[in-house]
């Protein structure tokens, strides 16, 4: 196999892994704090992508400079997180904390079905393609291969910032510590005066915003069609499960692993690229059923 193809695959994997990290870390964070696996998480990704693409198309249509897209991506992600995520948490999830896991899965699955159709109604079924931000950043030459700066530098940088930012937020800020406290022992945290309801809401909004940010960033690199959300939920679950649900740094490692595995497959066995992430997940789970980075749980009886 030619070495430049391997390099190309590695760079692709870096970009792709960074993108799925953003989505998976949100899923993992929500699970870690709320104990709910949010099946509708893929929808937040898709909605973020559509809002971003529609915004960029509107911006460029008005003749505004394409760099405005970057601040807009952040605004779009936060808006999606606060409005859609906030509504889902307050109206529905709040009623099912502490219930059977299966019931929680069913409720978020119902939300998923609703949001998938809502996207089609709002954004239509025609493909969206808004690559102006990617073109604006130009390309970079690495060992004789031209690569877009957007995918090679911007997306991995954002992912790294999110990883470091989340770590600092959870360890250094009062609210971050409150989140960690609620995760470890909700009753004790509540007794200490922490408002668990608020912690849940804000965590959910952060998680949803991260998925939407992943979507927004992806919107410049690919054309958007209905159904991207469903692919992303299983993919981000594969990443989160490989890492161990609730593991933030682990999600970064797993995302890179799966991203690289998949890009290698894209170059060498394109029919089977979709299989690779799941093969990696299955292999990991067979050896470590709780994921790569999860520690042993304590006794219940």
């Amino acid at each position, binding site marked *: 196999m030619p070495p430049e193809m391997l390099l190309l695959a590695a760079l692709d994997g870096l970009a792709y892994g960074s993108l799925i990290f953003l989505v998976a870390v949100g899923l993992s964070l929500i699970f870690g704090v709320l104990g709910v696996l949010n099946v509708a998480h893929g929808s937040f990704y898709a909605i973020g992508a559509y809002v971003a693409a529609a915004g960029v198309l509107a911006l460029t249509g008005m003749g505004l400079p394409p760099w405005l897209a970057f601040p807009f991506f952040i605004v779009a992600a936060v808006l999606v997180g606060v409005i859609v995520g906030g509504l889902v948490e307050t109206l529905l999830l709040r009623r099912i904390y502490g219930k059977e896991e299966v019931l929680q899965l069913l409720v978020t699955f119902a939300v998923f*079905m609703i949001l998938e159709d809502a996207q089609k109604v709002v954004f239509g079924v025609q493909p969206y393609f808004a690559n102006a931000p990617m073109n604006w950043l130009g390309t970079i030459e690495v060992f004789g291969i031209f690569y877009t700066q957007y995918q090679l530098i911007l997306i991995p940088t954002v992912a790294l910032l999110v990883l470091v930012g989340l770590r600092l937020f959870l360890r250094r800020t009062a609210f971050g510590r409150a989140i960690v406290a609620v995760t470890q022992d909700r009753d004790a945290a509540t007794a200490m005066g922490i408002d668990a309801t608020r912690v849940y809401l804000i965590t959910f909004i952060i998680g949803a915003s991260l998925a939407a940010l992943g979507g927004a960033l992806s919107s410049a690199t690919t054309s958007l069609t209905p159904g991207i959300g469903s692919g992303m939920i299983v993919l981000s679950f594969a990443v989160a499960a490989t890492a161990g649900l609730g593991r933030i740094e682990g999600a970064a490692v797993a995302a890179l692993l799966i991203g690289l595995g998949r890009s290698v497959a894209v170059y060498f066995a394109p029919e089977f690229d979709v299989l690779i992430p799941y093969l990696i997940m299955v292999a990991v789970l067979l050896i470590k059923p709780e994921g790569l980075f999860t520690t042993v749980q304590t006794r219940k009886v």
Partner: protein
Amino acid sequence: MARQLIIGAGLLAALIIFPLLSPWSTVILTVALCEGLAALGILVLLRAGQVSFGHGLYFAFSAYVVAFMAAARFGHEVLILVPVATAASGLLAALVGLFVVRYRAIFFGMLNLAISMVFFSLLEKLFSITGGADGKRVPRPTLAGISLERAEFELWIFYITLGLAVLAALGVARYLLSPGGKALEAIKSNETRLEYLGVSSRKVLFGAYVLSGLLAGLGGAVIALVSGHVTPELAYWVRSGEFVFIAILGGVGGVVGPFLGALMFQIIRGYAAVYAPETWHAVLGVMLLVIIFFAPNGLYGLMTGRKPAGTGQ
């Protein structure tokens, strides 16, 4: 129990008579029975407190087995196609089951979803073998050696499916009352005690999983026959979600539930096609939420007046 028999017998009588009065309904009712069978498989798993968002896999796998055999003119006969395809689904379920029965709740549900999505993608991508997104045509096979006209064929298939569905429902009902069925429920209520009885919860769940794969496979085989065409959509998550929806809508309190749910599902689909063609899954989502929050025992629960489980104070 008596009430279950009355509701079941009433439903059966209606199903026997209806296609005779209105021939246009034959195919729709057959489809409902097929989806009811798959939902019955979901019910079995729900008894253990597990939900699969990926049983479209077995539905589609069986349908494609029928399509491939029919295309190869190999055993082009209903009485061969249906058992072989169903058994093939059972085998696939046994293979996948070896892996997924190690997991519960979130992992169980999501791993099933992931595996079915992989299968869906392969069906779409391996164009040269599967025909890609266009799928494959299923030429009409013989029935007991006789080549039938379309209308006759459909009517016969309907009654055969109805018979199989009745057998499946009675079999599942019997199983759920047996020690093994109670052990299956024990996975939901207290797996620790089950292990401390010396019972392997994985084995119990494995049996139930293979049964659910067989039921979905039976439904999928018949769907391939009556629609004359298979597409990857049969394995898509939407399909799997519909089975879960039907099971919850019908209620998991009795084996009649999934079939009630499947009939209601066809009615909803009919209305949605007219009034909400673009948003019909959103309609399902909203209904699912309404059932979960306000009628947790589904239609069957409403008809038998069963109180929600867990509130029996």
